[in-house]
């Protein structure tokens, strides 16, 4: 890995910006095949003691890396800013080819900087490309300060204390920027598969006959289940009511166009990673569809009212949490209109 590093204690944003320019110039002078990538800025606000863990996560996102990462590590009691700038290229340039470089700025700063974090970060972002803000350890004041700089806010609703708070915060942010929610992205394969299951002409009409949905989820991922059911409700025209707790689950109903739909969210204590564990959907005509995590993909089962049953595996490798984060960064360049509507419907189901 080739590159250059600069660091300074008790520094200023303008000094950091100058160092960035200087390092890029030096890198290009070493070999004209080094090319800075220009896709998006990622501004990350973290607690300093967890800085390494977050940097490791970012290192593992693989091909979906941002071009310039500005990591703001918040240290209790700190009043000055220390900075490190690193320009790296994963590979040395091969003859006739270019080597992409990445830029990482690490700022150690204190809580007092957060309310005006925009004044520190503004000189450091590449202009005219998307800026994404991610604050995995809270610090909402930092996110609020950066909102006018950013087009996209990356959140993980699973990390909020409860579903109501998660939905309220996501809705608040969605009024100011495009929200990419990792909790929503974890449900993408499930949504794709449910859409595919009902896509063949023979089964499309069953969508209108759905009368029960059971979602199993990791214990801390109730919001993921709510978002999934919110998605179904928004797409199929259901009017959901609030769910109530019963025997550790959440249960309730949505008013469908043809019939009411029973909704149940069931925590799965055996699941260690955030997200969904399984989905069961029943229809008034007796069809039952289930999807569960399994080896090599999702284990699927379909049965009809005559008892005919079919099982198969929907192929796909687990993306892992690093893959989900990478997907979140990539989604910052796209627009998914379904999330906001799912969020609105999920709010109606919050107990």
């Amino acid at each position, binding site marked *: 890995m080739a590159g250059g590093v600069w660091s300074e204690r008790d520094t200023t944003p303008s000094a950091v910006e100058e160092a960035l320019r200087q390092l890029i110039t030096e890198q290009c002078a070493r070999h004209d095949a080094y090319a800075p990538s*220009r896709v998006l800025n990622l501004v990350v606000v973290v607690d300093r003691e967890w800085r390494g863990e977050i940097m490791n996560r970012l290192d593992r996102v693989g091909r979906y890396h941002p*071009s310039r990462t500005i990591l703001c590590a918040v240290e209790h009691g700190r009043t000055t800013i220390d900075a490190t700038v690193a320009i790296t290229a994963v590979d040395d340039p091969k003859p006739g080819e270019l080597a992409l470089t990445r830029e990482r700025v690490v700022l150690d700063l204190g809580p007092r900087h957060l309310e005006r974090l925009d004044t520190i970060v503004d000189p450091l972002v590449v202009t005219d490309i998307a800026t994404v803000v991610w604050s995995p350890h809270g610090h909402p004041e930092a996110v609020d300060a950066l909102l006018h700089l950013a087009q996209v806010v990356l959140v993980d609703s699973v990390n909020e204390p409860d579903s109501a708070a998660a939905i309220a915060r996501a809705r608040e942010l969605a009024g100011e920027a495009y929200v990419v929610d990792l909790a929503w992205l974890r449900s993408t394969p499930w949504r*794709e598969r449910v859409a595919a299951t009902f896509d063949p002409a*023979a089964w499309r*009409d069953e969508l209108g006959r759905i009368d029960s949905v059971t979602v199993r989820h990791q214990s801390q991922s109730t919001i993921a289940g709510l978002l999934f059911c919110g998605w179904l409700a928004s797409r*199929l025209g259901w009017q959901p009511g609030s769910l109530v707790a019963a025997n550790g689950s959440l249960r309730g109903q949505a008013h469908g166009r043809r019939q009411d739909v029973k909704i149940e969210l069931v925590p799965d204590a055996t699941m260690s990673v955030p997200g969904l564990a399984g989905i069961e959907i029943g229809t008034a005509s007796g069809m039952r569809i289930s999807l569960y995590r399994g080896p090599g993909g999702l284990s699927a089962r379909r049965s009809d009212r005559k008892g005919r049953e079919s099982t198969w595996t929907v192929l*796909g490798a687990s993306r892992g949490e690093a893959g989900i984060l990478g997907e979140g*960064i990539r989604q910052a360049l796209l627009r998914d209109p379904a999330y906001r509507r799912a969020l609105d419907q999920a709010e109606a189901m919050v107990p």
Partner: protein
Amino acid sequence: MATVEQQPNPLIEGLERFPVHPTTLVIFGGTGDLAHRKLLPAVYNLAHEGALPERFNLIAVSRSDIPHDDYRQMARESIVKHSRRKPDEQVLDKLLARVRYVPGTFDDDSIYERLDGELREFDEEAGIPFNRVFYLSTAPEFFPVIVGKLGEHGLDQHEGSEVRVVIEKPFGTRRHEALELNRQVLSVLDESQVFRIDHYLGKETVQNMLAFRFANGMFEPIWNRNYIDYVQITAAEDLGIGTRAGYYDKSGALRDLVQNHMLQLLTLLCMEPPVTFSADDVRDEKVKVLHAIKPPEATVRAQYAAGMAEGKMVPAYREEEGVPDDSPTETYAALRLEVDNWRWEGVPIYLRTGKRLARKVTEIAVTLKPVPHLAFEAEGSIGVKPNVLVMAVQPNEGVTISLGAKIPGTRMRIRPVNMEFLYGTAFLSQSPEAYERLLMDAMRGDATLFTRDDEVAEQWRIIDPILERWGSEKDGALPTYLAGSGGPVEAAQLLLDGHAWRTI
């Protein structure tokens, strides 16, 4: 009987990957080189990403008499060796568990009966008729045989689902062969069922040519004979023929790259904006471009002589293993074409391709006309050059524009500088392999990136007279060029005054 139109699937909004009907892919030539190196790894990578249809089966058909399990093991080894990512064992296990193998020769009725049985079994097990995609990854002489047998055995249609046939290149080796093949294929199948593959069209950068031209208003006003001086399309390879002597010596550079890939690049460059990006609207415009091209008189062919490539001495083409000592096959071809329509009248388009050239590069270079008045000439601005816009397909995928810029100093002296845009620097994702994209398109039924029958016929109409003429020339007329060089000196004869080949 009146049919009731079904409502669209309301669940697909916002999804990046739309559902694809359950599909069984049948690869004829399942033990062949293409299947091992490209098709099976592409299928695996689609599975890995969760991009395959929700329910998917694979059947390989080939001559080797081996049981299912041996084929699965062979497929596993190919995927491990050639996949662009390290396979996930669980996904691979599950994928291979759905693979079956049917041995036999392609003219043997029994393999189609057995194939029919396997296909029906998959359908019955799922309770739904699967779409069927037959991929003909075989020698071209088997294309009509297989299509004919599919028709005889009723495998060309399947109630409640779609049947599609993917045909690999070469689609004929001469125009009459291509027309006859089209006739035979279309006597069994409808054109909408036929997917003639040209893997160049699956490359992201080639598709980006459409985005570049039709999503950027700044280029359209100059994209015509008033501003463009000439165009060069280059597909140079630094390698020799390797182990492909058997194929290449029959084919040659003109058939191997010009008739298909390079004419595809040309049509994308020259086509009018389509009304929509639907398969037929795009292909209609491409065919119009081909229709406006007369078979060229200005052509050069050559064969590589021994030389030095990557620091090593390499043999001449005729000394390559498997190549006859007196082979007349060209390893280099260059043409000068014109598109005789309002937009392109009088703009020469130079095509060149070759093996064992100085470097591997595929690019389209559009040279604009020089500025009408050189105010800087008095200042000794010998460096003022026309603007050149280069669309690079490989190895770097991107666009370069050369601009005149002032050399720092007190005098007004100009030299060209490059403004480069590299696709990899501006997007987060890597391009998928061309075969992944094209396999999915075939399963989805999207024929935009596949070649239509009239397109093939037009391509051959342009190329056939060149083959005819070259075939009648004596061997002594075949020039040579040093391996590792930029090509034969004779190529310069094609250029009109003031034009020059770009350095390879």
